[in-house]
C-alpha cells in the first residue's frame, strides 16, 4: 500500500466515520434521556435512504402507510386515555399530528409527481415522512414502560427493531437501491481528490453536530432535555414532562437517522436491513464513549470508520468481524477503569 491508497482509504473511513458519529450521538442522546438502548436507530437510515430512492423512482413510498398506521394507533390509544380521563383537549393535538398531518402529506404527494421535484425538496419530503415516525414509536412502544428497567427497555428496543426490519422488507422488498448523487463534483486538494458527496457528508455532519451543540447549550428545550438526562424526577418537578422529553428525543434521533440515510444513499446500496449493521457500528462508537460522552463517541466513530475501511482493504472477508471485535478491547478498557459495584445493573 502506498501513501495515495492509504489516503484514499482514510478519506473513505473518515466519511463513514462521520455517519457513525451522527448515529452514535443519537444513541447517546436517547440512552441519556430515556435509558433505552436504541437498537432501531439504524432502521431510520434504511427507511430514509429507501424512501428517498422510492420518491426518485416516482412512486409513493410505503413508509407513508407506516406513518398513517402508526398515527392511527397513537390516536386510538390516546383517544381511549382521553375518554377515561374525560379530557378531550389534548386529544385535539394528537389528532392533528397523527391523523391530519399524514393525510395532508399523502394528498400532497399524490398531487405532485415526486420524481420531477428538485433534489432538495425530495430530501425534505423524505424527512417529513420518516422523522415523525420516531415520536410515534416512542408513544406506542416505549412510553407505557418508560419507568421500567434498562433491561426491559432494551428488550423492547430489540422487538421494535425486528418489527421495523420486517416492515422494511414488506415495504421495499429484498432489492437494494441507490439514489441520485447529492453533488456530482470532485475537487483536487493537494494529492487527494475529494468528491462532492464526501463534502456533503462531512458538511452535513458538522452542521448537525454544531446545531445539536447549540440546541443543548442555548435553547430552553435543549437544556430541559439535558436536565431530564441527569435527573428525570427533578426535571418533572421543574415542569418538564418526561413524556415530552421522550418524544422530543425520539424526534431528534429519527431526524439524525433519516438524514444519515439520505447522506449515504448515493454511495452505498441500501437494503431493507442495511441500517442495523450501520446502527451497530454507531453503537460500538457510543460504547467507546461509555454511552455518556458525546466527544468520545464521535472519536470512537472515526476509529470505527477508519478501522472498517482499512479492514476491507486488507481482509475484506473478515471486515465485519474485525469491526465488532473492536468492542472487546474497548469493553476491557472500560471494565478495568470501572470500580466498585454498579447499582443499576
Amino acid at each position, binding site marked *: 500500500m502506498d501513501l495515495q491508497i492509504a489516503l484514499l482509504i482514510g478519506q473513505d473511513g473518515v466519511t463513514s466515520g462521520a455517519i457513525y458519529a451522527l448515529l452514535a450521538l443519537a444513541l447517546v442522546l436517547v440512552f441519556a434521556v430515556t435509558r433505552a*438502548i436504541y437498537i432501531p436507530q439504524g432502521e431510520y437510515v434504511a427507511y430514509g435512504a429507501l424512501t428517498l430512492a422510492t420518491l426518485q423512482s416516482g412512486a409513493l413510498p410505503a413508509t407513508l402507510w407506516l406513518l398513517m398506521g402508526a398515527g392511527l394507533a397513537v390516536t386510538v390509544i390516546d383517544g381511549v386515555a382521553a375518554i377515561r380521563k374525560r379530557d378531550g383537549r389534548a386529544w385535539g393535538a394528537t389528532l392533528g399530528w397523527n391523523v391530519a398531518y399524514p393525510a395532508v402529506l399523502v394528498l400532497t404527494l399524490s398531487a405532485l409527481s415526486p420524481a420531477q421535484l428538485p433534489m432538495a425538496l425530495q430530501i425534505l419530503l423524505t424527512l417529513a415522512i420518516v422523522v415523525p415516525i420516531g415520536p410515534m414509536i416512542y408513544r*406506542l*412502544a416505549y412510553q*407505557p*414502560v418508560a*419507568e*421500567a*428497567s*434498562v*433491561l*426491559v427497555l*432494551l*428488550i*423492547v428496543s*430489540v*422487538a*421494535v*427493531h*425486528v*418489527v421495523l*426490519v*420486517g*416492515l422494511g*422488507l*414488506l415495504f421495499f*422488498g*429484498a432489492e437494494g437501491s441507490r439514489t441520485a448523487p447529492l453533488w456530482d463534483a470532485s475537487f483536487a486538494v493537494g494529492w487527494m481528490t475529494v468528491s462532492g458527496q464526501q463534502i456533503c457528508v462531512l458538511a452535513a455532519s458538522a452542521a448537525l453536530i454544531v446545531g445539536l451543540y447549540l440546541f443543548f447549550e442555548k435553547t430552553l428545550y435543549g437544556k430541559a432535555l439535558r436536565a431530564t438526562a441527569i435527573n428525570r*424526577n427533578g426535571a418533572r418537578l421543574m415542569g418538564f414532562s418526561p413524556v415530552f422529553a421522550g418524544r422530543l428525543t425520539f424526534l431528534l434521533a429519527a431526524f439524525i437517522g433519516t438524514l444519515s440515510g439520505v447522506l449515504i444513499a448515493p454511495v452505498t446500496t441500501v437494503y431493507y436491513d442495511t441500517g442495523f*449493521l450501520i446502527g*451497530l457500528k454507531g*453503537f*460500538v462508537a457510543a*460504547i467507546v464513549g461509555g*454511552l455518556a460522552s458525546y466527544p468520545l463517541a464521535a472519536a470512537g466513530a472515526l476509529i470505527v470508520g477508519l478501522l472498517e475501511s482499512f479492514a476491507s482493504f486488507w481482509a475484506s*472477508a*473478515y471486515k*465485519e*468481524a474485525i469491526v*465488532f*471485535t473492536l*468492542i*472487546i478491547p474497548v*469493553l*476491557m478498557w*472500560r*471494565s478495568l477503569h*470501572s470500580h466498585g*459495584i*454498579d*447499582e*443499576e*445493573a
Partner: protein
Amino acid sequence: MSGTATRAMRLLAGMSGRSIAAVKTPSRGVLAGLVLVGMAPQFLPEFYVTLLNYIGLYAMVALGLVLLTGVGGLTSFGQAAFVGLGAYTTAALTATADLPGWLAWAGGSAWLALLIGLALTALVAVVLGSMTLRLSGHYLPLGTIAWGISLYFLFGTMDFLGGHTGLSGIPPIEVFGVPLDEGREIYYLIWAFLLLAMLTTRNLLDSREGRAIRALKGGMVMAESMGVDTSRSRMIIFVVAALHAAASGWLYAHMQRFVNPTPFGLSTGIEYLFMAVVGGAGSVWGALIGAGVITIMKQWLQDVLPALFGASGNFEAIVFGVMMVLILHRARDGLWALIARCLPASRATVALDPSAAPLPHRTQPSRGEVILEAREVTRRFGGLVANDRMSLQVRAGEILALIGPNGAGKSTMFNQLSGVDTPSAGDVLFRGRSIAGLAARDIARLGMSRTFQHVRLLPGMSVVENVALGAHRRGSCGVLPAAWRLDRDEEARLLAEAARQLERVGLAEQMHEEAGSLALGQQRILEIARALAADPCVLLLDEPAAGLRLLEKQALGQLLRKLRAEGMAILLVEHDMDFVMGLVDRVVVMEFGQKIAEGLPDEVQRDPAVLAAYLGDVQ
C-alpha cells in the same frame, strides 16, 4: 408512596418473576406431561415429532435465558452463537475425515465432542463475561450482540468450517452402540436433556447459590453486604446459560447431520430471547411454553403471512415483535404466569427441619470489647470534605447512635464503616484489624452486618428465604451440588438458622409469607433478622425507625434492647430523637462532616454545640 414509585415497584416485581422456586407446582400435571412426552413419538406423525424436537432444542436455550434474564436480570443476544459453537465443534470433530495430528485424539466420538464443545463454550463465556459483567447490566447484551455477529461471520468465512455451505456428513449420536439416526430416536435424547436441564435449574434456584443469584435483582450493594460475590454469581448464570445453548447445538448438529451458519445468527439469538420473554422469563416452565408457542406460531405464520402479504420473507418476525412489545406492556411475567394463575395448584412452601444441626457460631467477643473503631476517617469528594477526621468506637453490648442534621455526613460515614466506600484518609478497625478498602462481602464475613435505609428485600421471595440469604457465607455448597441436590443437609441447616433468627426477632408467624407483603415495620425487622443470620458481632442500622408507626418503633426498640443484652454491638444512624434518646447508651453528633459532641444522651442533649446545630445559634 407516590404513584410512580408504586408503579416502579410493580414493574420490578413483575420482572423479578415472583417466587421462582416456590412457583405453583402442579405435580400431577407434571406426571401426566411426562407420560405424554414419553408416548408422543409412538402416535404422532413424523412432522410433529420433528416439531417437538425443535421445541425441545429451543426450550433448552430459552431455559438458559430464563436463568439469565428472568432470574438474574442480565440478558444475552448471543445465545445462538453459543448454540453454533456447540454445533460446529461437534461437526468439525466428527465429520472431518482428516483432523490435524494434534486433534486426532478428539475425532470420531460425538460424546467426546460434546465435552470439548462444552469446555470451549465455558471458556468463551468466561472471557466474554469477565469483560462485560463488571460493567453495568447493558454492556453484556451489547457485548453479546457484537460477539454473535462476529462469530456468525467467522462461521461463514472459515474454510475448515465449510464457509457458507457448511459441513455435512455428521454421524448420528450413539447411545450404548445404538445410533440415533431417526427423528423419533433422537427425540428421547433431546427431551431427556431438556428435562434434566429443567430439573437441575430448578434445584439450583432452590439453594444457597440460587438465593445469591436471585439476590442479583435486589441490588448489588445489598447482595454484596450479605456476603454474596455478585460478579461470581453473574458469571455462573452466564456460563450455565451458555452451556445449555452449546448442548442444544450439539444435539441439533447430530439431528440435522449438517450445519451451516444461518441458524446461529443474531436474529435467531433474538428469537431465543423472545421465547423466554413470551413464555415467562421468571419460570423454568416459561422456557418450554415460550419455545412451544413461538415454534408453532412460526410454522403457522410462515404459511399464512406470505399469502396475505403477497410476497415471501421473514414476516413472522413482525408479528413476534409486536407480540413481544405487547407482552412487555401488559403481562411482564409472560404466558406461563397467566397459565399458572388458572391452575388449582397450591403454593409450595419451603420445608423447614427444626432438628437440623445448628450452624457453627463464631465466638462472640466479651462485653465491653471495642468491636468497631473509626480513626480519623476522612472522606473527600473533590473539594467537599464529607467526613473530616471522624473517630468513634462501638463496644460489644452497647448501642451507639450517630446523629446529626441533614447533610452532616452520617450516610457517608456509614458507607466508610460498612465497606461500601473507602476513606480518603484514616482507618477503620474491626476487632483491631484494618478493614478500610476491603470489599463489603469480606467485611460481612468477618462479622459485620447491616440493614438499609430504604428496605432492600427480595419482595417475591418468602420471608425465611430472605433471611437465609444473610447466612450465605455460613454455607459453602456450590452450583454442582445444588443442581444435583447434594446440598440438602447444609440447606436444611441454613433454613433452620433463618427460622431461628425469625423467632428471635418475633417474625416466626410470617415465615412463609412473601417478603413484599409485610408492613414496612415488619420489613425493617426482617432486615435485622437477615443481618443476624450472618452471625455478626456488630450490627449497623441505617435509619431503622424511618417511616415506622409508634407501635412499630416500640417493637423495634425492644428488639434492639434484647440484642444489646445478648452482647451485640449496635451502631445506628438515626433522625428520630425520641427513639434514639430513650434507647441508646452513647451518642455521637456530627455536623459539617465533623464530630461536634460525644457522650451520654442526656449530656449531648444539653450540649450547646448540639443545640446550636439543631436549633441555630441562640443569642
